[in-house]
């Protein structure tokens, strides 16, 4: 699989990362290097091998259904560039 400049631009846009036009060829090249490495891994025969999800055998940690958090409106909003009446205020996003 080969990543061209258009694909690189699309991936950047989906990730909301601004990439200048003249930086696209290098980015596409980088993607290709990464994917080339992944393709090498694809050569290993893993037929019938369960995917390994953890290095040590672990069980997904659970929590009980108890309210232990929240009630910190001020802290939640403290990094917001704009907050009004308890809400985050963002540029209008309505269609």
């Amino acid at each position, binding site marked *: 699989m080969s990543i061209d400049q258009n694909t690189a631009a*699309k991936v950047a*846009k*989906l990730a*909301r990362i601004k990439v200048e036009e003249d930086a696209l060829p290098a980015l596409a090249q980088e993607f290709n290097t990464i994917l080339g490495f992944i393709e090498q891994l694809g050569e290993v025969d893993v037929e019938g091998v369960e995917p390994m*999800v*953890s290095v040590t055998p*672990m*069980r*997904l*940690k*659970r*929590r*009980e*259904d*108890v*309210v*232990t*958090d*929240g*009630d*910190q*409106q001020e802290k*939640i*909003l403290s990094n917001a560039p*704009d907050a*009004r*009446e*308890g*809400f*985050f*205020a*963002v*540029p*209008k*996003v*309505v*269609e």
Partner: protein
Amino acid sequence: MLDLTYDAPKPKTIAGAKHDWELVIGMEVHAQVSSKAKLFSGASTQFGAEPNSNVAFVDAAMPGMLPVINEFCVEQAVRTGLGLKAQINLVSAFDRKNYFYPDLPQGYQISQLYHPIVGEGEVLVEMGEGVARRVRIERIHIEQDAGKSIHDMDPNMSFVDLNRTGVALMEIVSRPDIRGPEEAAAYLTKLRQIMLYLGTCDGNMQNGNMRADVNVSICRPGDYEKYQETQDFSHLGTRCEIKNMNSMRFIQQAIEVEARRQIAIVEAGGEVVQETRLYDPDKGETRSMRSKEEAHDYRYFPDPDLLPLEIEQAWVDEIAANLPELPDEKKARFIKDFGLTDYDASVLTAEVEAAAYFENVAAGRDGKMAANWVINELFGRLKKEDHDITESPVSPAQLGGIIDLIAKGDISGKIAKDLFEIVYTEGGDPAEIVEEKGMKQVTDTGAIEAAVDQVIADNPAQVEKAKQNPKLAGWFVGQVMKATGGKANPKAVNEIVAAKLGL
């Protein structure tokens, strides 16, 4: 359990300019899990709180925060799956669905694309007596809800509240087995009923507890049957997805409007484009959500923050063993044990609280009579004041007491209605009220005879007429009932009047 067999309903047909068309509908229902805390954080799920007050740092996606799953939410999803007679997957896993929107601080939604917790199940959707659609469930997966954006508080800004961010949702995905707008609404109603019985979702549609995405396509009569035989989707038309609806009425309207739009396109020689659309109830049309098109590239991948969710069969069995009786079973039992009609059993089992109320009233009494009183008198009266069964001022014991008095012959059905009204508005023990207010039916034939004699003596002309026309006996009965304040036993009065008039 009584075995109820059903015929499939006829699919809805819409006449186009050239042909008849049928509808094919599949639904994705997002049901908010009923839990105290969120899916991956300890923040509260309570509706209507001060904005951004039910938010943990995990929900706000602060760097370095990790999700820890709420086991009860998993249990609720399993319970829902069991309620839909579905396959429970002992191993499921979480994936990230990536997109950007202001009410999604993580930049991705944690969902289960590849390995959902619940597999195939089935819902029986009744469309009248003996008629039902079997809607196959494809899967149920657990995912996070997004926050809420408010667009009308400021002309230039949108306001974001993250209280709902991270609340657990169950996405219940059906197969395209629904064949009309009414069936879609009935399907949603049935899902809601089952989840309310199970206690897994509050089902409050106004608060957004249940929202539906509806996939609509059209086909020519006969094509759907070909799809059913082969499970080959090429027999069906291209579908469009109408997003995010939380009103039964709008869902039905949107399906009809969208089907007609597709019919017009196809009959004009065009092609339906698969896309996401939004229903505008003011204009009565669906329109394309073009901005969503690019965002559709969700780049799913397994969430590296979460190990696969492994649950034990013994735990599932325990949940299954404690499952409440479900609507279909309860209805069948009511028909069998209490001799109710299909209709009455449906009405009484619509809500689990009403069913429990009825059972308390019916215990040790005539089931049909109990059903009549609960449905006609109690439900009717509650509806007048827009009250719920849980707010009933009349307890099952009180209503049962009234029914007992009728059964014993102490009061007539007519007096019983007056008594019900007194108990409803003032409370009290029915038997005592009857004693106190002297409402007891007069069964003493001596007293009734005296009253009949009096009426006959007072109305000699009527007596002559009645002898010619026996139907006039009814007039005498009415007069006697009036004279006794409605307390005379009507059967006894009828007999005595007939005897005295020599009819």
